[in-house]
């Protein structure tokens, strides 16, 4: 998979035929620069895209100075996979049995968190429409390092049954750095447990470097994202 990704990273962004936009998408009103009055009567000028969001892009996280320390970190990371409770498609239904006693993923140190700030694993559970992709990117960027992405089901791999849809993306790793795919339509909860186990092995081996890949190839990912998200009305990096 790494070779394939490198091949695609080499490809210039213009290789895709791009459809021309027929209308200009205006920026949302609350994101426009404007003058506001503070509670104490001052008039101040605000530019929400500059003032409310961090403008710096993501940075590459370098490994610890010795191997043994990095291995310790990776062991700790692998043993506490906290999943963001964000179901993007029908695959989210497979999460419920995992949370409950029958499959009980909690015994592997896997739990679900309500906010991106507390999660380090984003499971893209099935097809992603363009509208959801926008939210998924924002959720992913708000997660703190180290963070991982797992693509669930055939829809994330090659479009699955939505291969000819006008509104779903067909290849998730064009837009987000995927560490692991779990095949199936839908994968059973057992397959998810196996997938989480494989992800743990990748993390232990120091190979789950998705977040760093995202930081290194940030412009490439942004170009791809902006190609499908036509109404880009948010900051480039919403940390």
């Amino acid at each position, binding site marked *: 998979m790494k070779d394939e990704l490198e091949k695609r990273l080499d490809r210039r962004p213009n290789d*895709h*035929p*791009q*459809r021309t*936009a*027929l*209308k200009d*998408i205006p920026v949302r009103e609350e994101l426009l620069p404007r003058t506001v009055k503070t509670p104490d009567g001052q008039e101040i000028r605000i530019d929400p895209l500059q003032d409310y969001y961090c403008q710096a892009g993501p940075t590459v996280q370098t490994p610890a100075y010795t191997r043994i320390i990095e291995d310790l970190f990776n062991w700790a990371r692998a043993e506490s996979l906290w999943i963001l409770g964000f179901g993007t498609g029908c695959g989210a239904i497979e999460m419920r049995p995992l949370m409950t006693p029958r499959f009980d993923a909690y015994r592997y140190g896997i739990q679900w968190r309500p906010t991106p700030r507390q999660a380090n694993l984003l499971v893209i559970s099935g097809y992603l*429409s*363009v*509208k959801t992709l*926008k939210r998924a990117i924002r959720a992913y960027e708000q997660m703190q390092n180290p963070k991982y992405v797992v693509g669930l089901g055939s829809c994330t*791999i*090659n*479009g699955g049954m939505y*291969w*000819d*849809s*006008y*509104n*779903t*993306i*067909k*290849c998730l790793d*064009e837009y987000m750095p995927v560490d692991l795919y779990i095949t199936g339509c839908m994968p059973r909860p057992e397959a998810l447990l196996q997938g989480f186990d494989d992800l743990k092995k990748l993390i232990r081996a120091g190979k789950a470097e998705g977040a760093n890949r995202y930081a290194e190839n940030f412009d490439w990912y942004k170009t*791809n994202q902006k190609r*499908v*998200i*036509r*109404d*880009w009305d948010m900051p480039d990096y919403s940390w």
Partner: protein
Amino acid sequence: METLYARLKEPFGLTDWVLQKPDLCFVTVAREQLRPLLLHLRDLEGFTHLVLLTAVDWIEEDRFQLTYLLHDRAKARDIGVRLMLPREDASMDSIHELWPTAATYQRELREMFGIDFPGSPRVNEDFILEGWADLPPYRRDFDTLQYAHEAYAERAGRETRDPARHMKEQLYPDGGQDD
């Protein structure tokens, strides 16, 4: 249902009556008669629930068909009111005052078929397709497959087989006897 049709046929000029099931029938109505008919059905005949409002693109006949499906809870029966619109600059009167939920359907039809409903709340806001700049995707002259190929990156290696041809090749490798 027959008696209902017999009663309403004359005053509202209903045509093309189809009894799909004992408890489901369809009628076609002219545009100016739609609102009186819906009001009559809602207030006097007990069809209080708007089940759905949807459209069909009859591109060969150059028109859109709107279907208002109403449900009568007390008698457990449905009636579908059909209405034909010209396809060019399709526009229809909003019925959001009769059923507030119609506003959502009208917003969807505006986005997916490009049928305008002037006066309907938030009808021109993006609904599902954010920043859509092409033809409305449910129109039949919109080429979905071509759009999907052009707009979204694909992973190489995906094969699509026509089931009939695939089975023929499997079962009759030498070509078979038929044409």
